């Protein structure tokens, strides 16, 4: 601020305390009829023994004026300075302020939004002035910064599930205001019907995004009572899965590997446990899950379809707390406590399945079979002061399967994140992260006397500084960079024993760089824009031997004509891309808005998987000499409406998305331990479009949502030679294309102690390939499938129910607990996962065939779990 106070002391400065006070109606005579403003003010100053206070730039000091001869002080000042100014007397000071300036004078209010009970930062809380026309949203670290006029009397903070909080303002300078919000249940022990106005989708700029709180996720009835973040996500519009027990999720026609899944900013490569029946996130440590399906901000890059941003809790800053549960699949325990109250805290959580532990007590002594998984989440944070904060978080999860004594599998993720939040000044927020992530799997076969070990892994390291600049009330800038190093070990097999051998698919290495700049700009009261640009650059690095294929022939091993060796860290191939991102929102009034967005994104790594579900043993393939990066563009448009003070939210969105250079596979591709995997791959294109309707009731005894998606997802794969094309190179529906997809999620508080929940799902059956003929091969009957995904499976539908009973809490005791009873697939619908065609082996007729429907969870699954908090 270019504030310079022109201060002049009266000669007898030491007499200030006894100086006479001036009045605006005090008469005064000036010496000359015309002089400059500076001379006139000097004369008044000297005569009255006062000092002036003003912004020097506001006044043109050398400007000549004509003065009144004899008049009151106020009349003189009006004559000298004009109507634009107003005057105030403060003791012996005369304050001169430009009238408009008074209104424009603004200060930055910043701080953190926290839970009053635990000190946990709240993401996405809405902070605004009383009129609601200036506002901000707390970022993923709970930090906000807002520029407000000094005339604002009040600032308000609101967040779903918390009591609104209003703070009186008397802004004289930039201020730090931390909000500590009270959770609602704490305030109202009886059934809550909250009428407080809540922040809504209508007001935010972001479209195509959904946020689920840990509480919402916990309430959704889950398979075998295992609260599941990923399965909850699939209940949102635009999100599908291949089928029951399928790992991951498909967003707006994107493959499972196109989702950027971040756990405290660290990429998680496999989000599934037990091949997909459960997911890696322990809901007890999760604060907030946000899914971006479109309009993805420029700070995210590397995957083209969605961003699933999962934030772990920081740990209670006030007191020791625990949370846990015992279910039929797993048990879990979370502990959190301050290390130094209000300064530092930790959280640690573990989860483990225990079917194997039970089995161990009853198994034959020579049987070592076991299947289990475990997760460990940890986080420590330290608040140096309001400006500096450090976080260290980690996740370790593994699936282990041993079959008999001979075969063992193991796969899992580990991630580590070190983050430093630094508030440079009230309008500059810097976050710097150092991230490590690893995914690996291992297979051990003890086939005496040989032992076979098979290992594969992907390691990656990231450095990511990000700066947010709350420039002014209209503009918030985001800028940053990301440097990532990836190491892929696609597969290494070692045989030891009588035979000693090893086989190794060459390691691959890559460096990815991204820089971005984005601005969120308010234009007038109704229009908000966010425009940004990300530039990404990717280097596929040595050391590696790369083969050259005869360019005139199909890419096959026999057509290799040359090979080249690259040294360590030598660039073999590089790519780069500009990724513009654009979002706009126009708010007609408090209850209606329209939004539009466009994004272009690059993805430099794809999962190589040719099975119906991805498996833990699939490998990631880096873009390189023969595999171009995947690119995608998406346009989306939406209408948002809220009703009854945002109790209800309705939205309708349409999108159109294209994907270029998707990896696909030649028929009969051999992807396991394949040295020149490019000989098995093809590239294809994809397109997806759809309509998503979402109706949500956020508050009240009955809450929940209804989501409907009408969509189409298609792929096109042209072969290296025409007959290798899929469906003659024409577009065909993807495996997870579901024309109609409906999810109804309801939560009803029956009494203060009883809550019931229900899910209803309906979806068009997914595409399937049926034979259109049969032939004989040496007497064997072979089905002929000439057209991929030419038919559809029967429609999918299912209802799940759950009921939670809160146990009475003993007065004065911290311990509270509840029982949850759940039933998955209430009416035991045998939903088809697939239909397959085989010779009828039971028939005497060698030419007899049959069609068989496979249902993976074709039965009712009741479960009970006990949950506690203290």
């Amino acid at each position: 601020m270019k504030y310079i106070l022109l201060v002049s002391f009266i000669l007898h400065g030491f007499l200030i305390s006894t100086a006479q006070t001036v009045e605006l109606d005090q008469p005064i005579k000036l010496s000359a009829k015309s002089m400059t403003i500076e001379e006139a003010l000097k004369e008044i100053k000297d005569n009255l023994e006062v000092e002036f206070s003003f912004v020097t730039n506001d006044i043109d000091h050398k400007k000549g004026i004509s003065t009144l001869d004899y008049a009151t002080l106020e009349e003189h000042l009006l004559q000298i300075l004009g109507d634009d100014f107003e005057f105030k007397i403060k003791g012996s000071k005369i304050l001169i302020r430009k009238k408009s300036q008074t209104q424009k004078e603004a200060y930055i209010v910043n701080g953190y939004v926290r839970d009053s009970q635990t000190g946990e930062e709240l993401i996405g809380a809405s902070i605004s002035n009383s009129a609601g026309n200036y506002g901000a949203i707390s970022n993923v670290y709970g930090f906000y910064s807002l520029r407000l006029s000094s005339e604002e009397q009040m600032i308000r903070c609101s967040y779903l599930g918390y009591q609104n909080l209003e703070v009186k303002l008397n802004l004289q300078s930039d201020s730090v205001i931390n909000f500590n919000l009270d959770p609602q249940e704490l305030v109202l022990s009886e059934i809550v019907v909250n009428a407080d106005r809540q922040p809504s989708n209508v007001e935010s700029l972001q479209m195509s995004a959904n946020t689920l709180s840990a509480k919402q996720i916990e309430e959704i009835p889950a398979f075998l009572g295992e609260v599941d973040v990923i399965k909850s996500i699939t209940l949102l519009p635009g999100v599908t899965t291949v089928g029951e027990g399928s790992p991951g999720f498909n967003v707006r026609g994107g493959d499972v590997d196109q989702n950027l899944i971040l756990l405290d900013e660290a990429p998680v490569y496999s989000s599934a446990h037990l091949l997909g029946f459960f997911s890696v996130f322990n809901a007890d440590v999760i604060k907030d899950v946000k899914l971006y399906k479109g309009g993805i901000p420029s700070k995210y890059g590397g995957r083209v379809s969605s961003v699933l941003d999962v934030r772990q809790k920081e740990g209670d800053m006030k007191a020791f707390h625990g949370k846990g549960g015992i279910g039929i699949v797993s048990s879990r325990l979370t502990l959190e406590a301050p290390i130094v109250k209000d300064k530092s805290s930790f959280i640690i959580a573990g989860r483990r399945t225990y079917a194997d532990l039970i089995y161990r007590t009853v198994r034959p002594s020579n049987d070592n079979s076991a299947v289990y998984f475990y997760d460990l989440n940890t986080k420590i944070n330290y608040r140096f002061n309001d400006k500096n904060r450090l976080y260290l978080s980690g996740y370790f999860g593994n699936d282990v399967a041993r079959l008999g004594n001979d075969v063992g599998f193991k796969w899992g993720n580990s991630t580590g994140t070190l983050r430093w939040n630094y508030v440079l000044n009230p309008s500059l927020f810097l976050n710097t992260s150092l991230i490590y992530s690893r995914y690996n799997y291992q297979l051990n076969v003890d086939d005496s006397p040989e032992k076979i070990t098979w290992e594969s892994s992907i390691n990656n390291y990231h450095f990511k500084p990000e700066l947010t600049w709350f420039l002014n009330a209209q503009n918030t800038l985001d800028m940053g960079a990301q440097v990532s190093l990836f190491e892929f070990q696609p597969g290494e097999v070692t045989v030891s024993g009588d035979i000693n051998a090893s086989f190794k698919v060459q390691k691959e290495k890559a460096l990815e760089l991204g820089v971005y700049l984005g601005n969120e700009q308010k234009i007038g009261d109704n229009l908000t824009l966010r425009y940004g640009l990300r530039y990404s650059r990717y280097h596929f690095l040595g050391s590696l031997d790369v083969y050259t294929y005869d360019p005139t022939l199909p890419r096959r091993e026999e057509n290799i004509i040359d090979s080249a060796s690259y040294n360590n860290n030598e660039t073999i191939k590089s790519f780069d891309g500009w990724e513009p991102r654009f979002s706009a929102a126009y708010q007609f009034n408090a209850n209606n808005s329209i939004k539009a967005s466009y994004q272009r994104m690059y993805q430099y790594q794809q999962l190589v998987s040719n099975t119906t579900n991805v498996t833990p043993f699939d490998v990631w393939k880096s873009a390189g000499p023969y595999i171009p990066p995947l690119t995608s563009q998406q346009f989306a448009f939406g209408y948002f409406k809220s009703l009854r003070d945002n109790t209800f939210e309705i939205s309708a969105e349409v999108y159109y998305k294209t994907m270029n250079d998707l990896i696909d596979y030649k028929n009969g591709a051999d992807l396991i331990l394949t040295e020149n995997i490019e000989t098995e791959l093809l590239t294809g294109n994809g397109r997806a479009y759809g309509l998503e309707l979402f109706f949500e009731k956020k508050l009240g005894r009955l809450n929940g949502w209804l989501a409907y998606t009408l969509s189409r997802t298609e792929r096109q794969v042209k072969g290296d030679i025409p007959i290798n094309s899929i469906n003659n190179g024409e577009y065909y529906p993807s495996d997870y294309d579901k024309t109609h997809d409906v999810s109804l999620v309801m939560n009803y508080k029956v009494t203060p102690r009883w809550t019931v929940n229900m899910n209803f799902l309906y979806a068009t059956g997914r595409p399937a390939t049926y034979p259109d003929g049969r032939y004989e091969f040496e007497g064997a009957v072979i089905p002929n499938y000439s057209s991929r995904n030419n038919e559809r499976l029967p429609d999918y539908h299912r209802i799940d129910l759950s009921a939670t009973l809160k146990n009475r809490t003993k007065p004065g005791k911290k311990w509270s607990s509840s029982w949850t009873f759940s039933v998955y697939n209430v009416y035991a619908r045998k939903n088809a996962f697939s239909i397959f065609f085989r010779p009828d082996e039971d028939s005497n007729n060698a030419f007899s065939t049959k069609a068989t429907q496979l249902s993976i969870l074709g039965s009712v699954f009741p479960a009970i779990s006990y949950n506690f908090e203290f």
Partner: protein
Amino acid sequence: MKYLLYLLLLTTVLISACETTIDLELTDNVSKLVVVGEITDQSEPHVTISRTAAYSDDQLTPRVSEANVIIEDDLGEIIILTESEKPGFYLAPEGVRGVIGRSYTLSVVLPNGSIYKSFSEELLPVAEIDSLTSEFRTDLGDDDDEQGWFVTLYFTDPPGGDEYYRWKFSINGEQKNRAEDIYSADFDSILDGEPIDLTFFEFALNENDTVVVEQLSLTKEAQKFLLEVEIQTKTTGGPLDPPVAPIIGNIRNQADVNDFALGYFSASSVVSQSIIINN
């Protein structure tokens, strides 16, 4: 690998996955040419020409008669096959054999004049079978409770290069020729030159059964084709299955690059051994 994953999957889902046989209306068949031929060093070369039929027909598929069928080797020698009493089954004159080291190409001229030709297939040598043994086991077979006699084959893969094998079985004189009986394997880098033992655990045998095991050499392409046949006929529709697709062999329409005949023309050398199951 996949088998093990399935075990894991089964353990996971406990007993929930269930299969139901269903009736389906399938789209009409587009009739396509099928050519299956084989030349070996042990028997007369033969070719079967047929067309596809509707999937749900429980009948022999239609045969194609009156085609001109010849096999030509890389030295320019020509074998003419003639249609036998079995319609659509074309056989070389008695005593004609394939020769190890030569490459063979099949040509078929249909009555309507269209010409289909195979790629050239090399007749590769095959490793001798060292021995066959049998053992009574209770822990093998498709079902855990299946028990019986299982045959193990021993041979040594010759060092140097990749070898591709196929095995055919006959039990008490009856050829096992359903889709589930097709076995092939590729012994590449890891087990190259090593002694190998293979237990065929899908055949639970009874005492006194006579089993003949034939070991055939294959080209890489032929093994890939058979593997596809195996995968697609043994599909269980599970989450770990690759997508089903047309199995494209080595026979093409000479006039249209996008038209191929289903089936395969293969060249193999064959060795065999037999065993009578007893204690």
